[in-house]
């Protein structure tokens, strides 16, 4: 393994991080939107969202990616590896985020909502000023947990031809007949990223329990 091989793995790291960030940033608001549809009990739509979440939570990302990548072009939607990867990540992470947001919404104290109503806030204002700041805080550990899960499934994107950290490491191993060194480089890249997220989640949880203990 030489310098250019390590550079190739770092190139993979850029792909892994970019795709994860795009997936997280698009998946968060979509998850919130889905949760709101269920929370507000919008007729028909709420049932469709329930089915969507139940199904997506049970579907392995590999299977979903293969379905999107091979079947969508058949109905006239062109797909390349990157768009299939982003679509797959967003679909699966939004289903998990929806559950996190929804449980925060369901535990939201109703009296606050009614108090906001009684001082004449409109629905949009109530949501933005009263509900959103609080459910963000409650959901944060769950959402961060989902982010670390998302990063851990990105190696599967290789199945549609995306060259991420893991794929780059496998390729180099196959060329040099020494698979362990590139795998160790890959581990050295994943561990700090995921460990930072896991620690962030624990830190948020500890701070929140400390705050609750004070209150």
């Amino acid at each position: 393994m030489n310098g250019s091989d390590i550079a190739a793995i770092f190139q993979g790291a850029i792909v892994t991080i970019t795709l994860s960030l795009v997936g997280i940033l698009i998946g968060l608001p979509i998850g919130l939107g889905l949760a709101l549809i269920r929370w507000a009990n919008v007729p028909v739509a709420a049932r469709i969202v329930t089915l969507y979440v139940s199904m997506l939570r049970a579907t392995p990302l590999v299977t979903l990616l293969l379905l999107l990548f091979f079947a969508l072009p058949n109905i006239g939607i062109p797909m390349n590896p990157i768009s299939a990867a982003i679509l797959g990540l967003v679909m699966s992470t939004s289903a998990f985020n929806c559950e996190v947001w929804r449980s925060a919404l369901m535990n939201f104290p109703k009296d606050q909502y009614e108090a906001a109503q009684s001082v004449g806030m409109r629905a949009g204002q109530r949501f933005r000023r009263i509900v959103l700041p609080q459910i963000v805080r409650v959901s944060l550990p769950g959402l961060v947990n989902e982010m670390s899960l998302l990063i851990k499934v990105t190696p599967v994107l290789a199945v549609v031809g995306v060259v991420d950290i893991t794929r780059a490491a496998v390729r180099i191993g196959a060329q040099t007949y020494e698979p362990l060194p590139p795998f160790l480089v890959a581990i050295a890249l994943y561990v700090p990223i995921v460990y930072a997220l896991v620690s962030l989640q624990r830190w948020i949880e500890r701070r929140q329990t400390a705050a609750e203990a004070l209150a």
Partner: protein
Amino acid sequence: MIRDFGIVWSERSLLLSGLANTAILSTVSAVVALLLGFMVTPALMSKQPVVSGIARVFVDGMRCVPFLLFAYIIYYGLPSLGLRLDNWTSGLAALTIYNAAYMAEILRGAWVVQPREPIEAGIAFGFSGLRLFRSIILPPLLLSAGPVIGNQMIQIIKDSAFLTIIALPELTHAASSIQSRHYIPFAAFITAVFLYWGLCLVIEAGVSSIGRVAEARR
């Protein structure tokens, strides 16, 4: 479209053997991972800093490494250390060891919130060692950890699909080979998705019936 599903139906034996392999793979590794978890959990909570440190590094290490990378290390990496495993053995080993870490963490979480009193009462009644563990500690522990273990089992089923990449003939692999043989991607993969969904619904039903037992025992 209907014709495509007809082709999938004609290949049902391939798909069903894939489904059976997914079920066997997930069940075996879930059970063994749970048993291994029971061995790692006491180590995690050990008062010996060396023992708990090693267990912590194992558990946190597994939680930070993507499953597919771990499976690759076992399948492609171990042969260069002189240990060559076929795809079944390495897939099963990867799935089991990886999830043992998660199971250990789940059991530890359930263990630390268990009340002390029943255990002390058990000791006062003369239970000790394995019998104390089996009849006093284990039942409430499993009942309270049940839903999280169920979630982890769903995770194991989904992780097992990754093993299609090392050519293990599980459900996604069966769907892939039907799709490449007949070029019917939508019908082949959506059938696989529904079968995965079915497996997960079975587990969720199992978990909620455990929940009912737990409720009745309180």
